[in-house]
C-alpha cells in the first residue's frame, strides 16, 4: 500500500551514543498517529530527523513518494511537512498575524523587486495572504488577537498560534511536539477536539508526541511506543494499553 510517510531503519548516532536505532514507521493518508515513550526515549530526535534538523546516520525517509532524509528543513517544509516545537518557538516580536503570514513566504510568487517597490501584484498577494492568515487565526480562535505581539499571548494561546502557523504552511503531514504541554485539563480537552477537527477539515495526517495519555488514547488511531531509541510496540490504543512491554517501559519491571 502506498503510504504518505515511510520511515525505514532510521538511525542516528551522536558520537558513541545511538539516540535512535532502526526505527520503522508508516503513516497513511489522513491518519492520526501518536508517538509516545518515556523521557529521553528519542521522540523529538525522530521529529528532528523527519523535519531535516538532524541528518540521520543511516536509514531512509520517504514522504509522498520522494526521499527526504538529509535535505534542508525549508525544503522539507515546501514538500508539505510542517511542525510545532516542544519549547514554543514563535517569532516573539512579530504580531500574531505576522507569525502566521511568515508561513506563506515560500508559497508566494512576488519577486524581491516587487516587494521593494510594492508592485500591484505584490499588493494583491499581500491582501490575499492577510485574508488567508485571518482564516487560520479564526480556526485557532486567535482572530481577535491578530495585532498583538506573539510574546504577549498567554501560554495556551501561544501553543495554538504555533499550530496555526504550521497549518498555514499547508502541510500534508503535521507534526505536533507535545501540543498539550503546560495546558490545564479543560484546555487539553479543547485541544483534543481541535486536533481531531483539523485532521478531518484539512484532510491531513497528524503525528503527535504527547505525554498526556488521555489525549493520546483519545485521538490517536495508531500508536508507536519509543523507548531508549527503539520502537518497542505499535498498534491501536487498546493494544498499547495492555502491552506488558509498554507498561514495563513506563513503570519499571514487576509493575
Amino acid at each position, binding site marked *: 500500500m502506498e503510504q504518505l510517510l515511510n520511515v525505514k531503519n532510521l538511525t542516528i548516532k551522536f558520537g558513541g551514543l545511538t539516540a535512535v536505532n532502526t526505527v520503522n514507521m508508516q503513516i497513511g493518508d489522513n491518519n492520526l498517529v501518536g508517538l509516545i515513550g518515556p523521557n529521553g526515549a528519542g521522540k523529538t530526535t525522530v521529529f528532528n530527523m523527519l523535519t531535516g534538523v538532524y541528518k540521520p546516520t543511516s536509514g531512509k525517509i520517504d514522504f509522498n513518494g520522494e526521499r527526504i532524509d538529509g535535505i534542508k528543513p*525549508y525544503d522539507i517544509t515546501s514538500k508539505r511537512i*510542517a511542525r510545532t*516545537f516542544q519549547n514554543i518557538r514563535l517569532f516573539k*516580536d512579530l504580531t500574531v498575524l*505576522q507569525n502566521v503570514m*511568515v508561513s506563506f513566504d515560500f508559497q508566494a510568487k512576488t519577486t524581491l523587486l516587487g*516587494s521593494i*517597490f510594492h508592485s500591484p501584484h505584490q499588493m494583491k498577494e499581500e*491582501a490575499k*495572504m492577510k485574508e488567508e492568515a485571518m482564516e487560520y487565526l479564526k480556526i485557532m480562535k486567535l482572530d481577535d488577537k491578530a495585532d498583538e505581539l506573539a510574546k504577549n499571548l498567554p501560554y495556551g494561546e501561544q501553543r495554538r498560534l504555533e499550530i496555526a502557523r504550521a497549518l498555514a504552511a499547508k502541510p500534508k503531514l503535521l507534526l505536533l511536539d507535545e501540543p498539550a504541554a503546560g495546558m490545564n485539563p479543560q484546555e487539553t480537552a479543547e485541544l483534543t477536539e481541535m486536533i481531531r477537527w483539523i485532521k478531518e477539515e484539512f484532510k491531513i495526517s497528524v503525528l503527535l508526541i504527547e505525554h498526556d495519555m488521555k489525549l493520546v488514547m483519545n485521538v490517536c488511531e495508531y500508536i508507536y511506543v519509543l523507548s531508549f531509541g527503539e520502537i518497542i510496540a505499535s498498534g491501536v490504543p487498546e493494544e498499547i494499553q495492555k502491552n506488558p512491554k509498554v507498561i514495563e517501559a513506563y513503570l519499571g519491571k514487576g509493575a
Partner: protein
Amino acid sequence: MEEQMKDTAFDKSVIVKTYIKYAIIIGVLFAIYGIALLLIQRGILDSYTLRVVKTAGIFMIAAFGLNLILGYTGQLTMGHAAFMSIGAYGSAIMTQKFNMPYGVSLLVGILAAAILAALIGYPILRLKGDYLAICTLGFGEIVKVVIQNIDYVGGARGMTSIPVKTSLMTIFFCVALCFAIIKNLIHSSKGRAIMSVREDDIAAEAMGINPTKYKMISFVLGSAMAGLAGGLYAHFNTFIDPVTFNYAKSFDFITYVVLGGMGSVSGTVVGTAILVFLPESLRGLSEVFKENRMLIYAIMLVALMIFRPNGILGTKEITVKGIANWCKRIYAKITHKGDKTAKAGE
C-alpha cells in the same frame, strides 16, 4: 479550503489608493525641499549648517543599510564603513580617472559594494553573533589596509580633489528613496521572512524560509546602501582616505542605529540626526561645553541607553497617523484640564 483561497475578492482601489499616497508623499518631499531652498536663499541656513545637514543625510543612508542588517535581520556586523569606503573609492575613481558622469559613478560605487558584500557574505553569514561581529570587524580592517597599499588611489594619502557633485537635492532624495525601499521591503512577505530569521532562525527554517538566502539579501542590500553613501560622501567632501572609514566609523553607524531604535527606520533618522547635530551644536555653547564637547556627548549617550535601552523609538515608527493621534491626545488632555479648572472655579 482550496476554493476559498483561489477567489478572494481583491479591491482594486487599494492599488489606486497606494499610488495616490505615493504621489502625496513625493509632493510633500518636494515641498520640504522647496522650503529648505528658501531657507538657504534667505540666509537662515548658513553654509556651515548646510554642511552638517548634508553630512547627516549621507550618514543616514549608510545607517539605513546597517539598520536592515542589524535591526531587522539581527546580524551584528562591525565592518559597515568598509562598504562605504568601497563605494567612495569606486565612484571617485570613475569620476576622477575615467571622467564618467556622476550618476554612473554612483552606480558603480553601489555595485562594487554589493558585489563585495555578496562575495564575503556567502561564507561569513553562516557565523552567528559575536563570531560574525569579529569576522566583519577583521574584514573592515583588511579593506582599509588594502586600500592603503594601492598607489593608484593614493594609498594612505587618500584621494584628493574629487569633483564636488553631491548637491542637497541628491542627498535628500537618496535618503527618501532608501527610506522607502527599507520601509516597503519590511512591509512585505520578504520583510517578514527577514524578521523571522532575526526572531528564531530554527523556527523560520521549519516554516520554509531559507535563512542564508534572506541574510544574504539584507546584507547585500544594506551594503549597497553603504556604497551609495560612500559615493555621495566622496563627491561631497572632495577628499577621502582609508582611515576615514575605519572601525570607528563602523561603530558610529552602530551607535546611530542602536540609539534610534533597532528595527525602526524613522528611529534611524532620529538617531543619526541627533548624533550628528549634537556634537556640532555643543560647539556653539560656552567655553566649558566647547572644551568638553565629546565628554558631554558620551554622557548623553550613556544616559539615553539607561533611560531608553531599546533606543529612542524602539521598534516603533513615526507615522502621520501616530502624530495625529498624539496631537489628539494632547488636545484632549488640555480640554480635559480646562474642564477641571472650570469645575474648580464653580
